[in-house]
């Protein structure tokens, strides 16, 4: 994988587990990818595949139950997994910021939203509260919140879902971080605002050379904004490539099937193609290819535990042992065959 000197974020062999009552469950396995400054990397994948956990691991916010089992996360010159908590704290919010998936619960219910944005500025830029509040209002305007001076004094429960999400975004962008992790930043936004937000992110990227880790289910958003894409399935990366290559020449059967499932606004579809079956729960992952039980081209060899990501082209890696069959796989027919 590209991990040259000029990567901003470099994740190697990251495994994360959660402690449960009856022992711990590993939910991330050997995740490895890197992000260059100014690069927008999209992470897509099955719900529950570990996208959010990956981002929390980067931020060092796995919580009391989660722990990094192995691997390293390098950010600039520093290895995050080895940083002192104090140092880590300084980085958070200033150098790396995160937009959380659940705006509803991620905002403090008893603080005014304007203050919640301003607070970051006060913490990291040493600004006084008043100027920070003014800046917060500007940020709110930037993310498309109407009448921001008035809204700044609202509490989260007075805002609509999309507004809360935009507050989260404004908060994350406040310090113009080097790395922005956006976990489903626009799910609650209508497409016009969404477009505006994405444009804002892209503009900031252009302006500040900000790297973005964009986690989303919206393939359209990925196609539109991401430079590279990481596809995850059941705690593993199954494919990663440039956005262009991934959308034009997806290789892993999961990726292919995934792209097929997108409902289009341009035509009325009668039945959406789906991937049959369910994701295995992290506690009973089988060795070998985890997609195998649902895969139209699965074979015995898929159970081989030594399976790993294989580069199929420069900057394109796939975790599949039947690459040829995968390349050949015509998902349209596979779906129609009712697999």
């Amino acid at each position, binding site marked *: 994988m590209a991990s040259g000197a000029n990567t901003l974020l470099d994740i190697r062999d990251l495994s994360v587990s959660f402690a449960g009552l009856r*022992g711990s469950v590993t939910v991330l396995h050997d995740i490895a990818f890197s992000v260059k400054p100014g690069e927008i990397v999209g992470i897509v994948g099955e719900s529950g595949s570990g996208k959010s956990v990956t981002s929390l691991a980067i931020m060092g916010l796995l919580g*009391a*139950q989660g722990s990094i089992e192995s691997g390293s996360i390098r950010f600039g010159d520093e290895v995050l997994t080895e940083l002192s908590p104090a140092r880590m704290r300084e980085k958070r919010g200033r150098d790396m910021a995160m937009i959380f998936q659940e705006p509803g619960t991620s905002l403090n219910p008893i603080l005014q939203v304007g203050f919640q944005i301003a607070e970051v500025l006060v913490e990291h830029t040493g600004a006084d509260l008043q100027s920070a509040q003014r800046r917060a209002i500007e940020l709110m305007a930037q993310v498309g919140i109407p009448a921001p001076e008035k809204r700044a004094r609202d509490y989260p*429960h007075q805002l609509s879902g999309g507004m809360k999400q935009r507050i989260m975004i404004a908060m994350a962008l406040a310090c113009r971080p080097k790395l922005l992790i956006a976990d489903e930043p626009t799910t609650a936004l209508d497409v016009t605002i969404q477009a505006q937000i994405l444009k804002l992110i892209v503009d900031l990227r252009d302006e500040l050379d900000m790297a973005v880790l964009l986690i989303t289910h919206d393939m359209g958003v990925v196609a539109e904004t991401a430079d590279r894409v990481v596809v995850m399935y059941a705690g593993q990366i199954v494919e990663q490539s440039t956005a262009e290559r991934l959308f034009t020449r997806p290789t892993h059967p999961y990726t292919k099937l995934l792209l097929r499932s997108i409902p289009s606004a341009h035509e009325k579809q009668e039945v959406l193609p789906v991937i049959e*079956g369910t994701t*295995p729960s992290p506690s009973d992952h089988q060795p070998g290819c985890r997609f195998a*039980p649902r895969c139209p081209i699965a074979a015995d060899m898929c159970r081989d535990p030594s399976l790993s990501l294989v580069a199929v082209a420069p900057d394109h890696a796939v975790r599949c042992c039947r690459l040829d069959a995968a390349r050949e796989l015509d998902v349209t027919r596979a779906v129609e065959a009712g697999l």
Partner: protein
Amino acid sequence: MAAPSTSQTARPGSDFFLRFRRSRNAMIGSVIVAFVVLMALFGPLLTPHDPVKVNVLASWRAPDSTHWMGTDALGRDVFSRIVLGGRVSLIVSMSVLAVTLTIGTVLGMCAAYFGGWVDALVMRTVDIIFAFPELIFAILVAAVLGPGTLTVIIALSMVWWPGIARLTRSLVLGLRHEMFIEAAIVSGTPAHKIMRRHFLPNIVAPLIVRASIGVGFIIMAEATLSFLGIGIQEPEPTWGAMIRDGLSQLRTDPHLALFASLALGITMIGFNLLGDGLRDVLDPKVRN
């Protein structure tokens, strides 16, 4: 379909014990509480002396090999009395807790959930009782009822429930606008069930804490009542009364107050550790 894995299917409830075993506070607490309760239940059968046997010539004996904790003003064996007194004190405190927790949470939840006149009615009642200095109110109640164990329980219950109701109400007020409550409403869940299944589990932790800290306060309040002559009558020992009787001799013969306080202290520590432990256990987000 993925077959349910063995590691994930567990008998409901077994989680509880697993968590329980993980919580240090809960374990230590439950051992202490179990010890105290067993003493209260069976201790009186095993005591070396008759706890009400007076022998004034042997009054205020310091602890020795026959009287392990010495004797009191009337020469009664302190150890035997502590064992027997534990029974009374526990019965009183547990009854009061049971009564007040029930009344307090139910009314507090109703007040917060229904709002309007229900709230006004409950809270104003609470205000009135609450506004009386606890002791004075208990004295008034007890004075009306005449002395006895039941009186103590009723009087202290009357004094205690409003605090619980207020606390419950404030906790529920905070929860009332949670989305999952709306979800329950939408599911057609009747009010009583919303309270039981949604409010209660989410407010039980602070209530447990209040209850566990309340054990000691109630035991001491009982002592105050009996001091005022409206409590549990001689010769029946209670820890509170023993502490109180011992206090006047603190400088000369500290053992009576000391051992009774110790019994109370250990019990309180047990209940409090258990309470905090239970809180941790009941929280699905375990930490290790």
